[in-house]
């Protein structure tokens, strides 16, 4: 009895404290909202938003609802995160491998990069790129074309837009190629297990992924043309580019700084992962007659990835959360559009901040659940 009480009392006290704190907060919130004449509710989401957003992936203007404004912000956040993650991964892997290079100059260069960008606050980097570096770009009328089609100007980057015909056939061909590759891989593994023969899977896959889409161009009726941005004069001194795709400078500054910053952390993860594979593993693999490529593919990479992937996913998550710094340079992401403009207009602080937080929360919790599942799957089964 005594022991049981000992177990229950601390828990009861903790729960009581938590309940009291929350109760206190909700009680106050109720009184405050009554005093200010605000009513609680999520009905505002369907109201007309009557504000504009500069850059949006879906059709949006002031006549749409607040919910659609939320979607615009969310999509913009996802866009920045995805582009940032792609570049950060490419750069991070290169730098991480470079840090292990036997070449003194290369690994010092990589180390310098990591130490430099990791120790400067991300917000400062974003400001630097946006307010200092990108402001030094030429005006649209003075911009030189890069490769004849890209225009990097102070008003953003203008790239040619793709104009597809029968895009779905092209996509089907890619899907077909991927399915074929998977089938061939399974088949190749079966052959290797039963007959010990190895098929050149890599070359077959490469061929398939190129040839099938190419065929869709030749006989599937798919065609692709580019719309190249053209300079257009609005007034005597005001020029813009028309046609093509325009990426606003906010997006460029944001993805650039996010990628450069996060790449340093990914590089460290990659380095730790590759270093984490024991030397004995490589030597053992070499001694049973695997060639260097096979050593890398069959022995080192599977073990290194086990170490690399969990912290790297964490970095992806950090990048997504850090993309909320977009609000500082007025890139219309979730925080700016919803927790900024929409909050100012409706005054529904509790509802809007809670929705914003829940969005990020559900994003990160779902990824950590996925991560835990993955970790369990790849964990070394110890005896």
């Amino acid at each position, binding site marked *: 009895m005594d022991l049981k009480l000992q*177990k229950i009392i*601390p*828990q009861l006290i*903790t*729960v009581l404290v*938590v309940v009291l704190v929350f109760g*206190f*907060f*909700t009680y*106050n*919130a109720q*009184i*405050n*909202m009554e*005093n200010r004449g605000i009513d609680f509710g999520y009905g505002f989401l369907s109201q007309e938003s009557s504000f504009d957003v500069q850059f949006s992936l879906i059709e949006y203007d002031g006549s749409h609802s607040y919910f659609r404004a939320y979607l615009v912000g969310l999509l913009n956040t996802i866009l920045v995160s995805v582009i940032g993650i792609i570049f950060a991964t490419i750069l991070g892997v290169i730098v991480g491998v470079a840090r292990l*290079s*036997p*070449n*003194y*100059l*290369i690994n010092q*260069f990589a180390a310098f990069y990591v*130490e*430099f960008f*990791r*120790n*400067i*606050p*991300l*917000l*400062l*980097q974003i*400001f*630097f790129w946006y*307010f*200092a*570096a990108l*402001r*030094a770009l030429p005006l649209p009328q003075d911009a030189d074309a890069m490769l004849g089609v890209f225009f990097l100007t102070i008003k953003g980057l203008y790239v040619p837009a793709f104009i597809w015909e029968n895009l779905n056939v092209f996509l089907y061909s890619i899907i077909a190629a991927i399915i074929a590759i998977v089938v061939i891989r399974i088949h190749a593994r079966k052959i290797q297990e039963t007959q010990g023969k190895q098929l050149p899977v890599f070359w077959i896959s490469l061929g398939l992924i190129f040839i099938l889409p190419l065929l869709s161009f030749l006989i599937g009726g798919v065609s692709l043309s580019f719309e190249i941005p053209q300079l257009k004069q609005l007034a005597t001194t005001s020029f813009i580019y028309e046609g093509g795709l325009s990426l606003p400078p906010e997006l460029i500054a944001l993805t650039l700084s996010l990628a450069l910053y996060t790449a340093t952390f990914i590089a460290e993860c990659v380095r730790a992962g590759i270093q984490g594979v024991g030397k004995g593993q490589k030597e053992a693999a070499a001694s049973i007659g695997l060639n260097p490529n096979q050593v890398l593919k069959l022995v080192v990479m599977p073990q290194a990835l086990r170490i690399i992937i969990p912290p790297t996913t964490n970095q992806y998550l950090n990048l997504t*959360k*850090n993309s*909320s*710094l977009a*609000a*500082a340079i007025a890139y219309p992401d979730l*925080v700016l559009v919803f*927790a900024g403009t929409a*909050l100012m207009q409706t005054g529904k*602080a*509790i509802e809007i*901040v*809670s929705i*914003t*937080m829940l969005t*990020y*929360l559900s*994003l*990160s*919790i779902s990824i*950590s659940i996925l991560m835990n599942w993955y970790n369990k799957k790849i964990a070394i089964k110890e005896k």
Partner: protein
Amino acid sequence: MSKINFLKPDKDNLTTFLYIGSFLFVTSIIDVFLNSFFSLNITGFLPSSLSFIIPIILGFIGLYFIRIEHSGYKFLDQVNKNINTNNFNAILSLLIIFIIIKATPPILSWFVVDASFAGDSKDVCSGTGACWTYIKVWFRRFMYGMYPNAEQWRINLSFIALALLGSVGYFATEKYKKYLTLYYVIIYPFIAFLFIFFFISGGPIFFDFSYGIIAAVISIIIGFFIPSKFKFYYFIFVPITLYIVLKYFVFYEELIELGKLDGLNWVETGAWGGLSLTFIISFFCLIFCFPIGMAFALGRRSDFPLIRYISIGFIEFWRGVPLITVLFMSAVMFPMFLPADFFIDKLVRCIIAISLFEAAYVAEVIRGGLQALPRGQYEAAKSLGMGYWRMHIFVILPQALKLVIPGIANTFLALVKDTPLIFVVGLLEIVGMLNLAKTNPKWLGFAMEGYVFAAIIFWIICYAMSKYSYNLEQKYKTER
């Protein structure tokens, strides 16, 4: 030596290869060097594209020639081993060397040669270089924000005093070493709090409170030397007496009224800013987030399910949201949760928000350390008859914290790097001040200088912290 074997050096033509190779390599470097430092193009007679890539070709051939294994020259072997192991590495090395040589002159000229240091107006900055005059003129604003110039000695004095008090640990003799933890965990934060809120903030409204805290601190310190028999009565009577004595007999207010003592002007927290605010916020968040994080780390590993779930909920909630939304919450949502007449200062709200946020990360790091300890440690401690708290304070936490020094250091680094985000609630530390200064009509167009300046400062702070944590890690590394 009738013919030169161009494919493979051997014993006979080794030195020839060496001379040709070194000559080509050095030529290529000299070419790039002259080109970038003196804008002198010694291969100018060639077509421009050829002239552009000729250093790489020459250098590559040179490096190829001097790639001799076990040449017998120590220096050459070092070079070959480090930058010249194969063709691919040779090209990369050459590219890096050339980039460094190419990049040096513009960077040097921007930073030093063409930069302007003198004067105190925008007019002196007309060159192509950096305008450090801008930093010089705005220096006080970048360091102290809108804090009045005449009162800035208070910040300096507080920081110096806190730094001195913080270094007590290095000078403490063996006899007082056991009190150090207590000192750093309780007394030092208290003193820091006093300094920040009574000295930097100033004003008369804090006097009563300050007396209370001074009385408490003094009586706790003296309390150590009181025999345990009288401790109970001591702690009942002495602090209150001390407080009354301070309040009614020290006459601080009276002295101010009589004009014998200048009171400190009250500087509201909205005027604080610049680098000093970065320090203040990082300092307090660092102090607060550590114990909170530790509590939740222990809570997450607790045997009591309810406490465990509450801890998990707390940790996952703060880790799942970006700091900027947390600050938004502290700015617009938190006041709604408090009674209408209850006002918490913006800075304090900010510090609470950041502390809670970072505490969740600290908790996860410490949990990692707790999990890494072998079960035997827990069992051994229990078998000695230690209770939960005794076991954790004397056996588990010292070992676990030692293990997670790098992780904690990373979290603290992240904290320092996150401080600029307080612009959300309208507080302007150094980055915020930069953004303010660059919109000043008298000083338009110097954003670059400002950001570079702040970047250098942050880089030094963060790099020093990471090196210090590395040293700590090495110092406390125990063979396991």
